[in-house]
Each structure stands twice: as C-alpha cells, then as structure tokens.
C-alpha cells in the first residue's frame, strides 16, 4: 500500500491535484472534477425515491446559526470563522506596517457575521425550522456544499476544504431511522458499482476534550454513526468515504423543528465525501482514466 506522501506525490505528478503550498488545500484538474460530477449524478440517480428537495448554499453560513448549532461545543478546533478588517485609515496603516514587518496582523481584524460551512447540512436546519410544522411524511433534502475543517494534514484524503453531498431526512424517529437504513443499502450499491473495496463500521465524531470522549462513547454505544470505509492511503486505517448519521433530536431541539404531530423532530443524514471517493477511485483504478474498468467509467459517464 502506498503511503500518504507517495500517493500525494502521484496525484500531483499526474496533474490531478495542484498544490497551494498549504496542507489539505488543493486545486483540482478537469478530470478530477469530471469524476466528482459523475459521482454527483450517480448519487442523485440512487436518491431517486427520496423525493428530496434540492437546496444549495454558498460554502459559508450565518455565524449566529453556527453558534446556535453547538458546533463550538464539540469541534472548536475544526471551526473556520471569517474575520475582516473594519478600521479607519490610521488602523489600515498599522495593519500594513504589521504586514511589512511580518508581525501578526490578525488582531487588527474583527469577526464577521459569516463562518465557513463545517458540514453541508448545517445551514439547512434553520430553514426547516422556519417553515413550521412539517407534513406527515416528514421532510427530505438534497445538498452539496464545499465544507471547511481546520485539520491540515499531509494525507490527501484529509483535506481542509472539500465537498460533501448529503441527503437529510427530518421527521419521526421511525422515519429517519428507516431512511438511514435505506441510505446504507444505496451507499453500498454505489460503491459496488464503482468497484471499490469497502466495509461498514460503527464510528464516532472527533469530539473535543474529555467531555468529547464521553460524547464519542455515547455515540458508539447507541450506534448513531456508521461509516463506509475504503482504503486510500492505508489498509490499516481506511478512510471514511460515506457516513450515515442519526442525530436523534439534537438539531430538532436546537432549532425547534417540529413533526406533523408537534413533537420535536428527529434528523438523520447521509454524507458522501466527494473528494475522498474520487481519491479512492484514482487509488484503486489508477491515475490514467483509460485503465479504469469499463463498468466504472460507464457508471460515472466518463
């Protein structure tokens, strides 16, 4: 198995990714993007029966909504808040002087009303809440968004900026649990079409600190998160390429999302790591598209 450095070097040499000089931040080639597009279309095709409403957000969201979501309780080190200069001419001169002298100039900035989206579904919950009580059959949404997580790494499969394709279900506990089970079946069908090796496992989010240890144990005990793991840069530590999450009433409570009966809604989502699945394809089928299995190319319309 190739190491992280070997695989990254191969991706750069074959012109699939372009370095920016920052770990986990890359440019993408036309072929890389065509693969992501093909994958996106394949996911849409397999989500046919969900009757999902498609919603698109920019890769940033309201800071107030982000704060309300509880993200900083669980993942303070992954968050990306946006700061900007808001001073006068004098303050601007000071900023440029700091820059010239290579001093830290970040203190001259102020936090804005915007943060980078940490997961595609985060801006969705306030929208759902604003619509009031949902219909009896609940709600289903389809989203794809650039997401940001501050976790610089030499592993090309752990990017700081990446796309997440999601289906999000809101409704009763029974409705969302059934949805998650159906997503696991569909996810397996997709990965099989792509001829990638995988296995499914119980997982936990990387919650912060000692409190986070307990959150992680709770999440595992209750099997709230499953991941579909595909080896990319390690056989021993395969990469989570799809995740199937049951949030219970976490977002329903935070946002006051109500079912048709007026109960607190439960939510679940399936997330496809678009870059990760694409990287898995290049890892297992090779850097040259011409060498890929015909069935895989057909599935992705490549």
């Amino acid at each position, binding site marked *: 198995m190739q190491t992280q450095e070997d695989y990254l070097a191969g991706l750069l040499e074959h012109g699939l990714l372009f370095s920016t000089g920052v770990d986990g931040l890359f440019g993408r080639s036309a072929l890389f993007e065509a693969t992501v597009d093909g994958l996106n279309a394949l996911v849409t095709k397999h989500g046919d029966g969900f009757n999902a409403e498609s919603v698109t957000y920019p890769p940033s969201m309201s800071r107030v909504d982000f704060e309300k979501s*509880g993200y900083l*309780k669980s993942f303070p080190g992954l968050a990306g808040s946006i700061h900007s200069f808001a001073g006068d001419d004098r303050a601007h001169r000071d900023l440029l002087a700091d820059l010239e002298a290579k001093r830290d100039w970040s203190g001259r900035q102020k936090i804005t009303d915007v943060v980078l989206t940490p997961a595609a579904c985060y801006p969705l919950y306030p929208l759902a809440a604003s619509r009031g009580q949902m219909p009896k059959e609940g709600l289903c949404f389809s989203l794809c968004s650039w997401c940001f997580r501050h976790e610089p790494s030499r592993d090309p499969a752990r990017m700081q900026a990446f796309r997440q394709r999601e289906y999000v279900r809101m409704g009763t506990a029974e409705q969302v649990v059934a949805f998650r089970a159906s997503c696991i079946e569909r996810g397996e069908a997709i990965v099989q079409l792509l001829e990638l090796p995988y296995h499914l496992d119980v997982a936990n989010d990387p919650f912060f600190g*000692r*409190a986070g*240890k*307990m*959150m992680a*144990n*709770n*999440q595992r*005990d*209750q099997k709230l998160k499953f991941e579909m793991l595909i080896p990319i840069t390690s056989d021993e530590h395969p990469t989570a390429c799809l995740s199937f999450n049951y949030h*219970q*009433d*976490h977002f329903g*409570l935070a946002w006051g999302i109500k079912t048709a009966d007026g109960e607190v809604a439960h939510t679940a989502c399936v997330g496809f790591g678009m870059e990760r699945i694409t990287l898995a394809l290049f890892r297992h089928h090779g850097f040259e598209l011409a060498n890929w299995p015909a069935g895989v190319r057909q599935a992705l319309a490549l």
Partner: protein
Amino acid sequence: MNAKIRALISEFGRLSVDVATLKNEADLYTAGLTSFASVQLMLGIEDAFDIEFPERMLNRRSFASIAAIEQAVSELLAEAGRDAEAA
C-alpha cells in the same frame, strides 16, 4: 451524597420532569437527559466531588440513573481513600 447528586442533576440535567419525583433507579435518559446534558452533568459532578472520571466510566451507563452515578462516585472516592459518607 444522594441529595447532592440530585441537586446536580437538577442544575445540569435539564430533565423534562422534577428530579424529586424520580426513584434512584429511574432511567435519566427516559426522563429527558440528553447526550449534551449528560456531559455537562459529568463535568458538574467532577467539580462538586473533586474527582475525575476515568475513561472507562465516560459512557452512558455511568450516568443512566441516580443509583448508577452514586455507585460511580463512591467507587472513585473509595479509590482515592476518601469517605463516601462524608461526600
């Protein structure tokens, strides 16, 4: 100790029912204890009793009922050579 634990549950647990109405064995999660609140409760108990829960106890079962919490706290106090009755 039981009264102190009940007071902490009342402060941090955000239960949907009055703690006074709960039996020692009652399931706190059924009574409305969320995952987030159970973590706040865990930290509150650590401060109040000046203990630190080891990793093996950082799970749902340790905080599932007043009796379970009492058991966990007693165990930690005993390990530290402190008197559970006095706590």
